[in-house]
C-alpha cells in the first residue's frame, strides 16, 4: 500500500509556490484557469533562498492545515535592527500567504474568484502608493477566519477602507445591505439596512461592534443569514 507523505504537497507547503501568485512589490496578474496557482510566470530556478519569506510551517497533518493558523514569523532575536522596510515586507508576505491560503481553501466555494479579487485590490492599492501595505494583514486574517466560520455565506463584494482593511458587503432585494468592516483583534464593525416589515415605508438601520466569532449569532434577530447564505 502506498504511503501518503502529508508534508510534501507542493501546492501547500512549498513557499516558492506562494511567489507564483504574488511576489514582492511587483504587480501581478493571476490568470490561472484552475484553483491552483499559475506556475508559468516565474522561473523558480531564478528565485534563490534569500528571497523566501521568513515563514516557518508547523508539521501538522494535512487535514488540519486548512483551518489552522500555520504561519509563525521568525523574527531575528535582536529586533532593534529591524527597519520599517523589513516590517512592511514582512506584513506584505503575510498578506500574500493569506491570499494563497484563501485560494487553496476547499471550504470556500468561490475561493478562486475571491483570491483574484483580493489580488486585484492589493495591486490597486500598490499602484496608487507603492509604499503602502496593500491590504492590512490582521484584517485579511480576520476575514479569512470569518469565511471559514461561515462556509455557506455568499461571496461578498469586497473593497478596501482608507486604512487598507477589508470591507465586505452583501446586497439584496429591497435595498438590503449587510456590510462588515474587518478590524484588528478579530473585531468587526457592521451595518445593516433592511426593510421594516411592519412599516413598509420605513427602513431598519443598525450598526455596531462585535467579534468575528459571534457576529452572525448576534445578528440572528435581523434574519441576515436568510439572504446572505446559500
Amino acid at each position, binding site marked *: 500500500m502506498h504511503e501518503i507523505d502529508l508534508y510534501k504537497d507542493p501546492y501547500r507547503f512549498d513557499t516558492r509556490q506562494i511567489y507564483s501568485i504574488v511576489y514582492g512589490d511587483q504587480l501581478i496578474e493571476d490568470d490561472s484557469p484552475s484553483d491552483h496557482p499559475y506556475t508559468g510566470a516565474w522561473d523558480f530556478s531564478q528565485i534563490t533562498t534569500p528571497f523566501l519569506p521568513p515563514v516557518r510551517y508547523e508539521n501538522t497533518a494535512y487535514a488540519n492545515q486548512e483551518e489552522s493558523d500555520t504561519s509563525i514569523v521568525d523574527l531575528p532575536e535582536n529586533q532593534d535592527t529591524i527597519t520599517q522596510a523589513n516590517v512592511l515586507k514582512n506584513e506584505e508576505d503575510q498578506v500574500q500567504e493569506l491570499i494563497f491560503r484563501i485560494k487553496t481553501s476547499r471550504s470556500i466555494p468561490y475561493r478562486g474568484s475571491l483570491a483574484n479579487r483580493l489580488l486585484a485590490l492589493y495591486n*490597486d492599492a500598490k499602484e*496608487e502608493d507603492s509604499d503602502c501595505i496593500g491590504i492590512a494583514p490582521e484584517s485579511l486574517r480576520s476575514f479569512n477566519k470569518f469565511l471559514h466560520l461561515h462556509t455557506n455565506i455568499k461571496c461578498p463584494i469586497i473593497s478596501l477602507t482608507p486604512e*487598507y482593511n477589508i470591507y465586505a458587503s452583501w446586497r439584496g432585494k429591497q435595498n438590503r445591505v449587510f456590510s462588515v468592516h474587518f478590524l484588528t483583534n478579530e473585531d468587526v464593525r457592521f451595518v445593516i439596512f433592511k426593510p421594516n416589515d411592519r412599516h413598509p415605508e420605513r427602513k431598519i438601520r443598525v450598526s455596531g461592534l462585535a467579534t468575528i466569532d459571534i457576529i452572525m449569532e448576534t445578528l440572528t434577530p435581523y434574519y441576515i443569514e436568510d439572504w446572505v447564505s446559500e
Partner: protein
Amino acid sequence: MKGDQIPDPDHIARFCKPMQVSEGQIQATAFMLRPDEEYLSVNWLEFLNCPNRDSEITEIRNIYSAKLNVGARAKLAVINVGEVCEKVLTESPDRRNIEVLHDPMEDDLFDPSHSGIYNLKQDDELIAELILETVLETYTARH
C-alpha cells in the same frame, strides 16, 4: 470663499479610488475618512462655471490627473448637496448634521473648487452607506 456653505441645489464630485470600486460599482469605503483626515474631499461642480455636466466632469478629470495617480478603474461620484445632508440628518442614528463647505486650495495644489464634507468620524460605516445611497451619477475618473 473658504468656509462658505455650498447651496443645497448644487452638486459635488468625489474621487473614488479603484480599491473602493467593485465591478464598476462605487462602494461605501469611498466615503470613509482616513485616520488623519478631518473632512471628506470633494469638488464643487457649479463653482467651475461650465455650461453642462459633461464639461464639469472634463474639468474635474483635469484637476485630478494633475494632483493624483488616477487608476483606470477609479470613478467619480456626483452627489446633490441638499439631498446628502437631508439623508444623513434624517436617517443616521445620531441625526448627524453634516456640512458641505467650500475649501479652495490656492497653493501648489491649485484647486479652487475644492470643498469638504464635514462632521464625519472615522468609524462612520453607517453614514458612508447612507452617502453611497445618494450617489446620482458615476463617471470614470480617467480621461
